[in-house]
Every structure is written in structure tokens, then in C-alpha cells.
């Protein structure tokens, strides 16, 4: 039991005690604790088992860089694996579980992996599991998959909702530490709208780990008051618990606010997380710095921690990480840890400074506190079994190699500092390749393509005071770039340290100790793995990363990247800037999928389009289906009626009596303008310019490459008013096509287009009794065959509702399309059904509609698949020879006119079985050949059961089809294993003369 709570200090509320459990063990903490600090305070040493070797791991860091302490939180549907305990705000009733161990954290069978560790080096799965056969991998993969990963995700649907916000601001300040707070102050002072985001729940950043008072207050008191002052200006929006995870083009940044993670359940109306898409005119990055560890033998034992983290735990959370602490440092910060621990009454057994000449003032202060200091020394190896119990110190030579005296020392907490690296991830994402500053021994931001300012560590600030001043300047500069008068604010709080620190001794690895030396703790990558990669030729940092998986864990190598590439650079004997870094990619820390999905889940996944008759269909019990974004009725099964029976009944009723179907989803475009006739002539393959008022015509539109694009009808309602209909699926495509032609190709044409798809409620009434039904309810026009000819369009009324009626047939029966403005849609529909009762009218859905048109030989989507020409479809007659139209030239290319192109034919099933959709058509010779590839003659495009002819039929595209009527083929569907004999016939199965629709 090494960690314990200190009696004084910390930014915790000792009045608010919180209860929580870890692996079922009840523990307590305080408001203000993180789960990590509370676990430390309760003396918990092992918190996890490592990824590959299942070694014991303890808490290592205090922030986003934590590699070890990954726990599972919550239960059931809200269970969340892999939570960094350092980022979890403690709340009353929190339940945490350790991961990657069985049966328990203390006794984990997986630790046996340690015995096989020589086989588990980097790249082992590329070399093993390769035999004995090629398919062996799929066998091994099952077991490897089970063993992989850390926590387990819940398989239940997420009960929480997630929100999204889009925000605009003048200045986005990332980080509410000293530099960020200063930037927010000066930017707000200049009049800028400021968004201030910080990943912590409280403001202050690194200030929270300091003990000095600011303006006489504790750091948290001071930062809270600063936030209050900033917020009162009305121009600063402070976002705590918000990580800015990505920096994109055009100064767009992504952030996630953890709105309710610190409650057991989200409160009323609260989302779990909220995603922010922020468009900032200027960005100030005040993201601070992360500490590097040293790589030495057994450096993964619980109790080995980052020195800065040990200091944070003491000063921010009032937790001592151990009772007898040893600190190994290469820079001044290790002294801060030692001094603060000593002030708190914790024994510091030794401070090993790798530098031979430490700064005199710090050395003196340490001596004054009776802290033994060893210069030119560092840790060779940690010792211990379940946790660290001792360390071996060694002296170093000028090259940083162990040399001379070694000393064993007892300790239960080994605090290590290899130096500090500014958090440059966002600048790298924004296009700035990190530049190595050899003097500072740090990677600094490179040339960034976006509009931003650095402040603090990222700007090279060496003291809190300098960070503050940089922040003021950055905020001011950002405001000035937004066109505001920059602030003249220069004041700083009393107590900010301005001491210029001494240099850092660059030391990454201490070689020679006995035991595994870890580089990437989360992925169990050792120093040996890096050497192996080098040995096998994977020497570029990108290869090193992927071959060893160093830096690929959820912590993205925050404590391992620099050490890894420094080690590789050393092996290659090149300087660090030559070795370079790998690319940083968003997100900076893991982001929930829920936050990224936002509101677009469930019913909001995509919008649903409903026709004016939607409610009626649903009430009638229609089986609805999604067609693109639309909801359409497939059929209306009656009581006890199967779907298939309903479809056949509906189709039969249309052929024998009359039916009514909803065609509101068709694309509809209203066209006006003096050049409209000319324009229509150009876009349709058949003549349209001569269409008279009160007439409609079927039209074919080609793509510029000569293939059929869409078919539809054109109605001339008035002299200067056309209504164009398109297929449902191509409505948007046709509109875009027409708009493009008028903007880019023929801008001189005066044509106005407006989409009216939603304006009209449309239905088709079809069947021999359809005229009789209309005669019952339509007023304002004559309906007999001489007055209302095929393709006529007339304005009329149905019980006061204005309608346009066009005599068009898709089914091949006598039929009319009745359009009325959407508000009248349902009334007109009901009226027609009521009027049609004596004639036996039924509503019919998409399936029957399809079946009827197939029987008639009408082409639709499956035939207009972008590979067919008008000629292929037997519509060559619609390619006008009297005018020029789009697609004409390329439709007449040689290959398009070849005789054996796929041509539209009909098929009749030879054995009473349905013809499989998409089946390939094979001739008898090919069928006898067993081995693929087989030469297919064509394919089945639209199969159905023909209600009128009583057989299974299909439309198909067959090479040279028109010359092969009567031929027997096989429709073969290898995917479903079906084979059906078919006979080739004319695609017009039913009433080829058209007598019925012209009656």
C-alpha cells in the first residue's frame, strides 16, 4: 500500500465525500478527485494488466497522457470500456472495473504470456501463424481476436442521446491554463467574441499543480474568479470538459464536450456528449506540454510514474503517490516535485539529476530540505515484483551511458522526468510538419497552413510568467487580425513564477539494466522491439510505428513517440530532426462514436419523405417500403391476406376493373420561358418543341454520352407553362442536369425551372372502368373517348378541388393521371375511391404497379441502368431525325449501333418457376460447360408474375435479342443456385396493339 491522502492542501472539497467501487471494492474519495487520484489515495497499486504480456500496471500520469490506467465504467447498456482513470471525474456511486485480466486483477492467468514473451516480439504475427496451409490464418485468427483488445464494449443500444452545436467565434482559445486565460483576457478586452475550451472540468491547466498563491488566492480560486470576470464581459464562452480534438481546413476545429459523464446518469434533456464544430477567425493554441519518461529496465512496474504527475497528485489532489519517493530527472522540473513533496511531509529518499551541474538555486533549496541529490546520475533499473520496491541508481558518462558507481535504494514510488514536449498535435494536423529545435531538445510547431497564434509551451515559453505574457500577446494579435483594436492589457497576477529554467540533459534511454525496458506502455512495446525493427530494416519512423505498433494505442504514443524515434535515431546514428516524427491525426484523445453521429441516429439517421397520402396508406395497413428517402406502399394486404396474394389481387383488379395508385413521388419540374420549346427539344431525344397546349407526351432523355438517362412525360398546361415528370429516383439528377445546361452550356436560353415535386399530389387511376369512375366525380370537362383523347391534358375539378388530368397509361390499361395541389391530395384520393366503389376500385401499391408495367413491356429503372441506348430498349423510334438533341452524336457511335448489343426482350418461364432477378442468360451449349467463366448472353432485368397472362415472366437484355424470339435459354443465378429454363418473346406480353389503353 503505497499511495495515501495528505492531510492538507489540494483542490478537493473535503466536505463532500464520495463513495465508489473498484472491482467491487468499496472506496472513498472527495469532490474534485479524479478516479486515478482517488485510487492512489486508497493505496491501489495495480490498476490494470498490460496488453500483451499481462504485466501489472499502475497509474502512470495525471492527464490525457495516461497509458496504463484504463478501466471499464458503468454497467449494462451504458458500459464504457477503456476509460482513462485520470480523465474520469469522481462521482458518488461510480463503479469501475479493471480490464484485460481473468479471473482477477491480482491473479491473472494471462500473466503466463510473460513466459512466452520471447515469441511475442514486434511483428510476431507476420512471422508465425503462417502455416501449415494458406488457410491456417483464418483458424488462428479466431483465437487471436478473442485475446486481443482491452475492455469489452456493450452490445446493447446506447440509451443516451448526443447533441451537436455549430459555433462561430472571433478567437478560439484552446487550453485554459495560464497562457490560455491570458489570451482570452486580452482578446475579450479588445472586443473579440471568444470561445475558451479546456479538457479539464475546472480552469487553470498547469496552474492547478502549482502551490504558489496568485493575487493571494489558491490557484483554483484565482482561475475561477478569472473565468467569472471573463464570462461577465458577455464575450467569453467558457467550455470546460471540452477537448478540441481536431484542426481542419479553413480554421474549422472539432471538439467534444463531455456534458454528463460526471453524473451517474445524464440529467433531464442532457446529452451525454456534445460535438462542437467551431469556425474560428483566429485560433490561439495554449495546449501546454507533456512530460517524457526515461526508458530503463522494469520501468513499467506499478509505482513508476511521471515526475510531473507525482507533483500534480500532491498539489492538485493532496495525494502522496508513495511513502519513500525517488526522483530521477534530466531537467529542473524534478526539483519542483522533490521540493513540493518535502513540504508536504513526504520522504524524498533521493533526487538523481542526470546533469552533472544542476542549477545552484534549486540544489540549495533541495539541500535545505534535506533531500539527498546525486548529480550525473539516473536510474539503471527498477526492482520489485508486484510493485516497485527499489531502484538501482547509476552514474553516467558524458555520452549518457551507465558508468561508474551503482547504488541500490529502497523506494515505493519512482518519479521520472526525461523532459517536456509541447503539445503540438493540433498544429501538425493543421499542416505544420514538426520542426526539431536541437537547442531546446523539443519538437516545435512547423509551418502551419491555418490562421493561429501560439501561446505558452507551444510558443517556447519557459516560465509561467512568460506563458502569461505570450498569452496576452497572442490574444491581442488574434483580435487585431479580426480587425479589432488590440488590447493594451499587460497586467499579470501576483505570484507567477518568472525564473528562467536551466537546460535539459537529453537522455531517452538508459541501457544495461536487467529486465524489460518499455517504450510504449499501452501496447507493450519494448526497447528490444525497437532494436528488432531496426535490425529488420524497418527504420523510417512510419515503419517503426507500424511494425512495432509503437504509438498506435489509444494514447497515441503521448509518452512514447519521442523516446521511440530518439532510440531509432540513435541506432541509425542520425540527429532527431532527420529521423522526424510520424503524422499526428485527429482525434487528440478518443472521441465517442455517439458524439460524431450526433443527432443523426434512429429516426433522424436520414430524413424521410412522405407523400400527401402517407397517413392514409399507413392507416389502411399498407406494407410500406423505403425507396431512397421516400416511403411508399408496396401493397395493401387485407385481413389474413399474404403480401403475394395482395399484389396479385391488386394487379388483376386493375386489369379487370379499376385501381388507384399514389404516384406523388415522381419528380416534377415546372418550366416557363420564351425558349422553353427549344430547350425541351434539345434535352429530349424525341420532338417536344411542337407539343400543343393541352397535350402530354412520353419523352426520353439521353446523357451526353448517348446512354438513356431518364424517361418521363411532358405536359403543356398553358402556352407558357410546362410540367415535366421524371422517375422518382432521378428527380434530383434531372433537375441538376437541366440547371447545368442552362448555366454552363446554353446560358443564352431564357428558361426558368422550378421544382414542384412536393406541390402536387398525384395518383393514377387505371383499368377498363377508370373512365366511368371519373365520370362520376369530375366536373368541368368531358371525359368520353372523343373529347378526352389519349395524351390529352385537361383542367377540371373534383368536388371543388382543382385537378389536372392527363390521359397517360403506364399499365397498358385505360388510365388517367390526376394531379391536385398537395392540400387537396387526401380529399381527392378518398373521393375517387368512394366514387369508384360501384366499379370495384381498389388501391394498388408499388409491387402491382411494377408488375403491370412489366407485363406491358414498359422500361423502368432496371432497364435504364446507364448502359442501355434507346435502340437497345426498342425505343429507337424516339430518336428524332428532325432535330438535334443532347446525346445524339455519341449515341450514334459505331459500338452503339452494333447488331449484337443487348436488346430488350421478354422471357417466359418454361417450368412454372419464378425467373430470378439479375440472372444471367445462358444458351444450351454454355449450360453444359461446367467450369466458369461462362459466356452470358444477357441478364434478367425485371421479373414478375404476370397477372393477366398467368405466368412468370421477365424483361431482359439479350445480345441481338430482337432476332432471337422463340429461342430457349437458361436463366442462371449462381448466387442463389437457381436455374430456370426460359423462352425469348416480345417484351410486350400484353395487348401489344394498345387497344385497351386507347379504348
Amino acid at each position, binding site marked *: 500500500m503505497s499511495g495515501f491522502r495528505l492531510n492538507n492542501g489540494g483542490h478537493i472539497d473535503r466536505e463532500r465525500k464520495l463513495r465508489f467501487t473498484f472491482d467491487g471494492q468499496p472506496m472513498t474519495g472527495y469532490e474534485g478527485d479524479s478516479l486515478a487520484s482517488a485510487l492512489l489515495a486508497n493505496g491501489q497499486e495495480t490498476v490494470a494488466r498490460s496488453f500483451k504480456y499481462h504485466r501489472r500496471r499502475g497509474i502512470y500520469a495525471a492527464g490525457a497522457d495516461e497509458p496504463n490506467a484504463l478501466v471499464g465504467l458503468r454497467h449494462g447498456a451504458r458500459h464504457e470500456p477503456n476509460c482513462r482513470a485520470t480523465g474520469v471525474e469522481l462521482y458518488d456511486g461510480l463503479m469501475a472495473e479493471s480490464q484485460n485480466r481473468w479471473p482477477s486483477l491480482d491473479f491473472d492467468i494471462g500473466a503466463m504470456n510473460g513466459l512466452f514473451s520471447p515469441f511475442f516480439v514486434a511483428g510476431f504475427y507476420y512471422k508465425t501463424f503462417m502455416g501449415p496451409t494458406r488457410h491456417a490464418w483464418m483458424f488462428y485468427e479466431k483465437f487471436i481476436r478473442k485475446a486481443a483488445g482491452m475492455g469489452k464494449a456493450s452490445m446493447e443500444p446506447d440509451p443516451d442521446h448526443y447533441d451537436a452545436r455549430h459555433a462561430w467565434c472571433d478567437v478560439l482559445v484552446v487550453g485554459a491554463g495560464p497562457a490560455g486565460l491570458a489570451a482570452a483576457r486580452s482578446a475579450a478586452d479588445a472586443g473579440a467574441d471568444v470561445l475558451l475550451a479546456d479538457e479539464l472540468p475546472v480552469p487553470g491547466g498547469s496552474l492547478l499543480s502549482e502551490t504558489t498563491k496568485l493575487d493571494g488566492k489558491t490557484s483554483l480560486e484565482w482561475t475561477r474568479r478569472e473565468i467569472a470576470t471573463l464570462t461577465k464581459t458577455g464575450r467569453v464562452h467558457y467550455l470546460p470538459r471540452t477537448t478540441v480534438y481536431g484542426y481542419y*481546413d*479553413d480554421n474549422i476545429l472539432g471538439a467534444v464536450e463531455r456534458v454528463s459523464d460526471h453524473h451517474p446518469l445524464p440529467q433531464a434533456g442532457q446529452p451525454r456528449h456534445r460535438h462542437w464544430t467551431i*469556425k474560428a477567425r483566429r485560433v490561439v493554441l495554449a495546449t501546454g506540454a507533456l512530460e517524457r519518461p526515461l526508458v530503463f529496465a522494469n520501468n513499467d512496474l506499478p509505482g513508476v510514474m511521471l515526475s510531473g504527475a507525482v507533483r500534480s497528485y500532491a498539489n492538485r489532489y493532496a495525494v502522496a503517490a508513495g511513502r519513500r519517493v525517488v526522483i530521477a530527472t534530466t531537467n529542473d522540473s524534478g526539483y519542483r516535485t522533490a521540493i513540493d513533496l518535502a513540504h508536504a511531509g513526504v520522504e524524498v529518499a533521493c533526487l538523481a539529476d542526470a546533469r552533472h551541474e544542476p542549477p545552484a538555486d534549486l540544489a540549495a533549496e533541495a539541500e535545505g530540505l534535506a533531500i539527498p541529490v546525486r548529480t550525473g546520475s539516473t536510474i539503471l533499473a527498477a526492482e520489485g515484483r508486484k510493485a516497485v520496491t527499489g531502484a538501482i541508481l547509476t552514474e553516467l558518462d558524458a555520452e549518457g551511458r551507465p558508468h561508474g558507481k551503482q547504488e541500490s535504494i529502497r523506494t515505493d514510488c519512482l518519479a521520472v522526468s526525461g523532459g517536456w514536449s509541447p503539445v503540438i498535435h493540433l498544429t501538425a494536423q493543421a499542416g505544420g510538419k514538426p520542426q526539431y529545435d536541437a537547442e531546446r531538445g523539443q519538437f516545435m510547431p512547423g509551418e502551419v497552413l491555418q490562421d493561429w497564434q501560439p501561446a505558452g509551451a507551444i510558443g517556447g515559453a519557459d516560465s509561467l510568467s512568460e506563458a502569461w505574457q505570450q498569452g496576452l500577446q497572442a490574444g491581442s494579435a488574434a483580435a487585431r487580425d479580426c480587425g479589432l483594436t488590440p488590447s493594451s492589457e499587460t497586467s499579470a497576477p501576483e505570484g507567477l513564477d518568472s525564473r528562467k529554467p536551466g537546460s535539459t540533459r537529453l537522455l531517452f534511454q538508459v541501457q544495461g539494466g536487467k529486465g524489460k525496458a518499455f517504450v510504449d506502455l499501452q501496447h507493450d512495446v519494448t526497447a528490444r522491439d525497437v532494436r528488432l525493427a531496426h535490425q529488420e530494416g524497418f527504420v523510417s519512423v512510419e515503419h517503426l510505428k507500424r511494425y512495432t505498433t509503437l504509438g498506435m494505442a489509444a494514447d497515441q504514443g503521448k509518452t512514447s513517440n519521442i523516446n521511440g524515434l530518439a532510440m531509432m535515431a540513435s541506432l541509425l546514428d542520425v540527429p532527431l530532426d532527420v529521423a522526424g516524427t510520424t503524422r499526428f491525426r485527429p482525434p487528440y484523445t478518443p472521441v465517442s462514436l455517439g458524439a460524431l453521429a450526433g443527432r443523426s441516429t434512429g429516426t433522424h439517421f436520414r430524413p424521410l419523405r412522405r407523400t400527401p397520402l402517407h397517413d392514409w396508406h399507413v392507416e389502411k395497413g399498407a406494407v410500406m417500403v423505403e425507396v431512397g428517402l421516400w416511403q411508399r406502399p408496396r401493397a395493401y394486404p387485407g385481413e389474413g391476406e399474404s403480401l403475394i396474394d395482395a399484389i396479385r389481387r391488386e394487379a388483376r383488379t386493375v386489369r379487370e376493373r379499376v385501381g388507384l395508385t399514389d404516384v406523388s413521388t415522381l419528380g416534377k419540374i415546372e418550366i416557363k420561358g420564351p425558349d422553353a420549346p427549344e430547350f425541351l427539344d434539345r434535352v429530349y431525344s424525341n420532338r417536344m418543341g411542337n407539343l400543343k397546349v393541352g397535350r402530354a407526351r412520353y419523352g426520353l432523355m439521353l446523357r451526353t*454520352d448517348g446512354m438513356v438517362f431518364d424517361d418521363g412525360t411532358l405536359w403543356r398546361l398553358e402556352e407558357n407553362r410546362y410540367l415535366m415528370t421524371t422517375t422518382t429516383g432521378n428527380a434530383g439528377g434531372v433537375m441538376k442536369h437541366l440547371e*447545368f445546361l*442552362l*448555366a*454552363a452550356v446554353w446560358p443564352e436560353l431564357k428558361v426558368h425551372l422550378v421544382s414542384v415535386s412536393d406541390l402536387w399530389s398525384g395518383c393514377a387511376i387505371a383499368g377498363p372502368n377508370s373512365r366511368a369512375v371519373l365520370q362520376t366525380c369530375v366536373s368541368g370537362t368531358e371525359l368520353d373517348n372523343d373529347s378526352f383523347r389519349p395524351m390529352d391534358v385537361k383542367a377540371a375539378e373534383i368536388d371543388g378541388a382543382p385537378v389536372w388530368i392527363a390521359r397517360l397509361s403506364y399499365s397498358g390499361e385505360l388510365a388517367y393521371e390526376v394531379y391536385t395541389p398537395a392540400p387537396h391530395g387526401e380529399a381527392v384520393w378518398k373521393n375517387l375511391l368512394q366514387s369508384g366503389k360501384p366499379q370495384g376500385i381498389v388501391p394498388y401499391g408499388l409491387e402491382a404497379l411494377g408488375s403491370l408495367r412489366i407485363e406491358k413491356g414498359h422500361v423502368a429503372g432496371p432497364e435504364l441502368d446507364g448502359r442501355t441506348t434507346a435502340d437497345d430498349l426498342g425505343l429507337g423510334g424516339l430518336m428524332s431525325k428532325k432535330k438535334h438533341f443532347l446525346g445524339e452524336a*455519341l449515341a450514334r457511335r459505331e459500338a452503339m449501333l452494333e447488331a449484337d448489343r443487348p436488346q430488350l426482350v421478354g422471357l417466359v418461364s418454361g417450368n412454372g418457376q419464378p425467373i430470378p432477378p439479375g440472372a444471367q442468360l445462358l444458351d444450351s451449349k454454355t449450360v453444359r460447360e461446367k467450369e466458369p467463366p461462362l459466356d452470358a448472353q444477357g441478364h434478367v432485368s425485371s421479373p414478375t408474375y404476370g397477372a393477366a397472362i398467368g405466368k412468370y415472366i421477365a424483361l431482359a437484355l439479350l445480345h441481338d435479342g430482337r432476332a432471337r424470339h422463340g429461342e430457349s435459354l437458361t436463366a442462371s443465378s449462381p448466387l442463389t443456385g437457381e436455374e430456370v429454363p426460359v423462352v425469348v418473346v416480345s417484351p410486350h406480353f400484353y395487348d401489344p396493339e394498345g387497344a385497351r389503353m386507347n379504348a
Partner: protein
Amino acid sequence: MYLNCPFCGHRHLEEFTYEGDATISWPTLDSQDIGSWTDTVYQRRNPAGPHREYWQHVHGCRQFLIVERDTTTHSIHKVEVAGPWAGETAPRNTEAKQ
């Protein structure tokens, strides 16, 4: 990424769709020359560097825009309206951001 639509102003990329190379030319409709129609439909340069291309402001003014974009750096230099309203909507120089 944002596009500065000359009519609507700075808008998020989600509101637009990419509509291809704007440097292609179109033969007159009566031309039967397969070669020039093939060029229009199939031939594209695909340069690494400045590129003039069409974007449609589908979820906005629905105008077709001609955008000058650098295909290597992704920066946008100029946006103008294509078509008959080009004369009445000034092109936006996107260096002067919002």
C-alpha cells in the same frame, strides 16, 4: 472547408456538390464530330495545382459556381457564378475571409 459563394457568402462545404472540370468546352448541338464530343465527355487533364472546376450550391442558391482550387494545397483562390447571372454577382476573392 468553406466556399465563399458570391451570392450567399461563406458557407460550409456540405451545402455544395462537386460538378467536374470547368475547362471543358462543348460542341454545338448540331455537331456530329465524335472526337469533340468524346473530349467533352471523357477527356480530363487532372492537374496537380490550380484547377478550375464547377461546384453547385445545391443547398443554397442552386447556382453553378466556377471555383479556382489548388488540388495540392486545397486552397481556394476564386469563386464566381457560372452562367447568365455572372455579370450581376461579383466574384469573391477568398483571401478576404469572413
